[in-house]
Each structure stands twice: as structure tokens, then as C-alpha cells.
């Protein structure tokens, strides 16, 4: 601790250089944090949103191969099923000329709450969802994106069904990452019947919540056995496994992001190492004098290393603060990008910020090691010779 003043004084000696180095490290930390935010968002969805007691029931052939709606009722009767809800893709586009910008599904209003008890939805909003035929419950991500409020009416034009429906937003899933838009399947069913079509006779997907986590595998087996040799054989899997499969095709993109992140991190090492070596070279004479008057190698090495580390920590900390500010800004206009899926939402998590700080400390030290070690090892006489 007694060397702290010495270290800080050395940092302040060439303020411009320290500022430039600090600035470069800070920007690199911001970049690393922003880049890591994307895969981290994916992990957060898999770790938190996905439950092990929720089961996805879908057609074995793929999610675009539907199941008969009546199968939902059979699933509900399976022993150990606490609740089951069918969910059918509506493919609704919000603006007339626009494309599908958030996932929207027709669900059964009386069952949705029981299947997703872990979702933060107010009880009275779920009650309203059952009361109003045209009600919709919308995830906070989508609410924010369009500046919607509860009570507002919105119109979605389906790209799958030949209908355009008017909805009243009655509730919100109070989770920043939730993009869902749920509405009453009966509303769509009646709209289709009014056009002379047979109505909504299919279920795209059935979500099941098991009462007992230990019964999950047995339930999945029973449901799959029930559908065997029917028109629509099913394949059950846990929500976690379903989502990781669903996002699996993004792995390649994530790899590229990680490669670029590693490159940027390497940049920090270079920049910091460059500065550290400049400082050491300029101070060669001074270091020799310090040694000549009795300061040990360890002290010399330690103070030089601490100097590099201190600069990185300050820069890294600033970088983390800037990242928080920047993601807040980005959230307002960059959310759901259909090519990136969940990677498109910038919600910075604490682990990412911790990564950023650790990275800056680690690379700061790494960058300082070689020049500091060299300076500490160099014989006094040699250094003094060079200088004088």
C-alpha cells in the first residue's frame, strides 16, 4: 500500500499517454461486453426461461407439421399432467406492409396461466384475458419496442391465415426478454368459421407442465406412445431441450462472435503492453537508480505491474459503465432481429460485466509482465551505462 502514491504518480507522469491507453482499453472492454451480451442472452434464456418440468409436445416431423387440436384434451388426461395448453403460430405482422417481427400464438386462455406459473403475469390480467375474447397478453420486450400500453388496441395481419384481427392488450409478461404475444384461440377459430372455413382444427404445439419433476420422463413416454401410429406422431422433449435445439442453428454465428471477441481482447493486450514497455524504457535510468539505492527486484516488478493493472482496472471499470449506458440506448431501437433471433436483444447481464472487468485486469497484468520483468532483472550497471 505504501507504494500506491508512487504508482499513481508514475501513471500521472504522462497524462496524455495514460488517457489514450486507458481510452483504448475502455473501448475494447465495451466491445467485448457488447459482443458477449449476445451469446449470454441466449444462455440466459436457456437457463432461466426454460423449465425442466415444462414439456413441449410437437409433431415428430417438425414444428410446422401440426397436430389435431383434439389431441390437447387427451394430453390433459395423462397421469401427472398438471396443465396443458395448445399454442398455434399466427404469423401476425403488426404494420400493414410489415413482416412478422415478434412471435404471436393463439392459445387457450383458461390454461395458459397454469402452464406458465413462473411467468410474471398479474392474476387480474390473466382473469381479464379470459374475460375479453379479443384480449392479448404481450411480453415486455414487444410492449417496449412499440410503446404499447395495457388497454391499447392493436391490429395484426396474419401471414399464415387469411385474416386480420384486432386485439385489446389486457396484460403483460413482466420480463424484459419476453417477446411473446398470446391471444385467445377461440377468437381466431370464430374468425375462420365466419369465413366459411372449418375453424382452427389444429394445434401447432402443446405445452405441458408436469406436477412432479420425477414424472417428466414417464409423461413424455406416455404422450408419445399415445400418438404412435396416428396421423401425427409426436415427439416430446423438455422445454430446455426444445429451446436449445431451436437456437442450435445459431451456434456457428456465436462461434464467429467469440472469435472476434478474442481478437478484440488480444488488442487490449497489445495496446497495454505497448504502453507498459514505453514507460519502462523511458524510466530505465530511474529504475536503475532505485535499485542502486536498495529497492529489491520484487518491489520494482510489483510496482510496474501494479501500474499496468491499475490503468486497466480503471479503464475496464469505465468500460463496464459505458456498456451499461450503451445497452440501455441500444435496447430502445435494436431489439428483435429475425436473423439473429434472441441474439438480437442487447440485455447486458452481470456475468458479462464481471467478465469485462476480469478481462481488463487479466490482460493489463499480462501486458505488464514482460516489460516489468525485464526491467526488474536488468543489472543496475548495465542500465546506468545505457543512460549515462
Amino acid at each position: 500500500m505504501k507504494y500506491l502514491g508512487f504508482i499513481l504518480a508514475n501513471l500521472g507522469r504522462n497524462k496524455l499517454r495514460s488517457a489514450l491507453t486507458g481510452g483504448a482499453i475502455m473501448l475494447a472492454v465495451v466491445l467485448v461486453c457488447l459482443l458477449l451480451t449476445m451469446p449470454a442472452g441466449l444462455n440466459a434464456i436457456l437457463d432461466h426461461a426454460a423449465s425442466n418440468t415444462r414439456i413441449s409436445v410437437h409433431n415428430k416431423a417438425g414444428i410446422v407439421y401440426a397436430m389435431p387440436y383434439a389431441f390437447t384434451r387427451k394430453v390433459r388426461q395423462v397421469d401427472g399432467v398438471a396443465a396443458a395448453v395448445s399454442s398455434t403460430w399466427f404469423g401476425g405482422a403488426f404494420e400493414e406492409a410489415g413482416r412478422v417481427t415478434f412471435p404471436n400464438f393463439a392459445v387457450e386462455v383458461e390454461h395458459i396461466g397454469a402452464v406458465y406459473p413462473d411467468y410474471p403475469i398479474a392474476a387480474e390480467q390473466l382473469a381479464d384475458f379470459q374475460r375479453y375474447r379479443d384480449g392479448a397478453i404481450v411480453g415486455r420486450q414487444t410492449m417496449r419496442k412499440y410503446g404499447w400500453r395495457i388497454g391499447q388496441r392493436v391490429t395484426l395481419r396474419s401471414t399464415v391465415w387469411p385474416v386480420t384481427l384486432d386485439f385489446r392488450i389486457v396484460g403483460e409478461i413482466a420480463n424484459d426478454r419476453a417477446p411473446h404475444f398470446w391471444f385467445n384461440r377461440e377468437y381466431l377459430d370464430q374468425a375462420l368459421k365466419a369465413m366459411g372455413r372449418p375453424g382452427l382444427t389444429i394445434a401447432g404445439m402443446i405445452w405441458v407442465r408436469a406436477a412432479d419433476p420425477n414424472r417428466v420422463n414417464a409423461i413424455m413416454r406416455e404422450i408419445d406412445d399415445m400418438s404412435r401410429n396416428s396421423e401425427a406422431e409426436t415427439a416430446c422433449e423438455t422445454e430446455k431441450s426444445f429451446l436449445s435445439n431451436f437456437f442450435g442453428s445459431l451456434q456457428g454465428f456465436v462461434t464467429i462472435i467469440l472469435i472476434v471477441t478474442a481478437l478484440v481482447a488480444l488488442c487490449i493486450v497489445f495496446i497495454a503492453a505497448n504502453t507498459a514497455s514505453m514507460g519502462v524504457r523511458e524510466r530505465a535510468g530511474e529504475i536503475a537508480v532505485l535499485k542502486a539505492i536498495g529497492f529489491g527486484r520484487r518491489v520494482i516488478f510489483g510496482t510496474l505491474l501494479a501500474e499496468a493493472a491499475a490503468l486497466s482496472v480503471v479503464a475496464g471499470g469505465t468500460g463496464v459503465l459505458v456498456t451499461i449506458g450503451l445497452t440501455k440506448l441500444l435496447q430502445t431501437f435494436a431489439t428483435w432481429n429475425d436473423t439473429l433471433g434472441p441474439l438480437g436483444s442487447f440485455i447486458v447481464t452481470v456475468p458479462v460485466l464481471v467478465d469485462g472487468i476480469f478481462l481488463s485486469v487479466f490482460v493489463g497484468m499480462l501486458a505488464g509482465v514482460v516489460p516489468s520483468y525485464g526491467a526488474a532483472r536488468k543489472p543496475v550497471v548495465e542500465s546506468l551505462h545505457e543512460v549515462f
Partner: protein
Amino acid sequence: MPLPLSYSLRNLRARPARSVMTAGVIALVVIACSLFLGLISSLKRTVVSCGDPRNLVVMRKGSDNDGSSQLSLEAFQALRFFDGIARDAEDQPLASPELVVQPFFRTRGGGRENVLVRGVEPVALLVHDSVRISAGRMFTPSAHEAVVGRGVRGRYAGAELGNELEFGRGRWKVVGIFDAGGSSFESEVWVDVRELANDAKRVFPYSGLRLRVASPAELEPLMRRIDDDPRYALDAQRETDYYAKQSESANTLYILVIGIAVLAGIGAGFGASNTMYAAVQARTAEIGTLRALGFSRTTILSAFEIEAIALSAVGFLIGAAASIGLSILIGYAMGGVAFGAATFTTNVVTLRVGVSDLLGALLLSIVIGIGGGFGPAWRAARMRPIEALRKA
């Protein structure tokens, strides 16, 4: 009188370690920037190059892609005899009815992806003439056979010539591999349209129709005839427009990459400034001497700017070479980069860092050089000769 170019260049060699490190930082930024740009432009090119300016896409009004559109048999029968559609040697209209389904495929790694399966008739190869069977043969209708795109081959279990591919409700024998000039058709599997409709139990036999127009002059009138026909509520658009719209989401990614490039560029500029400031400081006496000899401020300024630009040029060259190498390496290691979870189908994109991506990176490194070098060069130019000489 200007200072010789070799003055600036030789100075870079005076402290090689420092120059190499700074050039290294610029190189890393160039790699990061051109890899990202390359990835996005590859994605865009893959999708956009599916479109043929001579073709029209016909879909149900309100659909925004093949996957959500429906077309009845009657509509197809009526539409294929519309005026303005090109005809083949046997006078058959070049109208390709197509059904698009996205079933699960098992990847070789044990994962699962949605793959675009396109049900077609043999005429499809005439309408999409960029698609060529490069190995094996076209499928025989009603024989449960399939041809797979080059990007699909090897990625999924059974996606090899002669093997059986399992998707939908059955098994399909792979009898051919096709090539489509790098477009995203290569991420598709093509089978007989009737068999696919049967397998997917579709009420409507087709999702849409692709038409080859007889001549460019016929294009607009044909589009209007289809749009205005009250019987079917269909919508015709240029195939190039359709795929341009499908690739729109790649455009928002450009904003992301530009943001990343700007941040990284400023950081690298700081690093370059640092090196140049040190160079100016170390050469205080030299600059003083040059000024005393009569070299003007502008001369000194430009000499240091040239030094900074040379530094970033070296960085760019290293970075450009490395990013091309890295993209090839990634291609070998991962095969292709898969995109598109939310669009329901997997698009396997071959990462290629092209000239335009490198131009973007070049622009960035020039800005880094000029911007990062300006402060130090300015300081050098403003030095008073007497003071500079005295300091030494």
C-alpha cells in the same frame, strides 16, 4: 521542400517492437471488422442471389414468404396459361408450382434444425436455371427420391448421395446433389411436389408459383394481370424483389457491425496516437534540427502523418491477409455458418471475405491512421525550433 518518403518509413524501423505492436492492433481491428462484414455480405449475397430478374414469385396476398403462402390447384392451372410466360422447347409454359415445408433434420452432430424442403416439378430446373445437378441425377417423381443442395450435403445425417434421408413422415433416397452458384437454394432439399404435399398433409397442394417471363416488356403487364385477377387473391412480385426483402434483416446487422467497427477503430486510433506521440517525443531534437534547417511546419506535419498512415497500411495488409486466411480456416473447420432460427429454416452460409468487405476495413484503417497520427503530427509541427533544440 518535402522530406523524402524514406524518412518517414525508416523511422518506423527505428523502434520495430513498438511499430509491430501498433500495426498488430490495427491488424486485429481489420480482421474483426472484415470478418463481420464478410459474414453479413455472405449472408446477403446467398439470399439475394436466389432471385432471377426474369422470374416472378406468385403468392397468396398477405404472405411474406413461401412458407406461409398457399396456392390452389385451380389457381395454378389458370395462371400457367396466362400470356407473357416463357415456354420451353415443347411449348410448355415455364411455370413452376412449388410447395415449401420446413421439417426437422438431424444434424450429424446430433442436433436438430429446420431445413427448407421444396416440392417441385421437373420444370423447376428450367425456371431456376442457376440450379444444376452436379452429381447423380434429378429425382424421379413418385419414387420417394430427393436431391439435396451442396450446403445440405454432409451437414445432416444421411445427406449423401445414395443414402437415405429421414424427414417428415418418411425416408427419402438421395439421388442427386445440386449446385446453385452459392445461393441459398443450396441449403434446400428438393423433392416431388405431390409426394411432399402428401407427406405434409397439406390442404393446398402448393405454396406458390414461380414464373419465367417471356420478355422483360411482358413483366409489368403480367404482374398486373395476376394482381388484378379477382378470382384468386394472389400477389406477383419480381423474384429479385422477393429475395431482397428476405435479406432485409441482414441490413440491420450492418448497423451493428458499423457500430463495432467505429468503437474498435477509435480504440486502435488511440493506440496509434500513443505510438506516434512517443515517436515525436523521442525525436524532439531531430524535429528541432529539421525546423532549423528550414523545413516548414507543413512538411513536418505531413512527414509524421505519412508515418502514421504507413503504420496503418502495414496493419491493414497484415489484417487483410489474416482475415482471408481465417475465413478459409473457419470454412474448413465449420463447413458453413448457419443462420436463421427465427425464420424457421437454416441457411448455411459460406463465409467469404470479399473485396467490398476489405474496402470497408481499408477505409477504417485509413481513418485510424490519419486520425491517430494527427495529434502527434500537429504537436511535432508546432514545436519551436529553439526550444526543441535546447531540450535535447
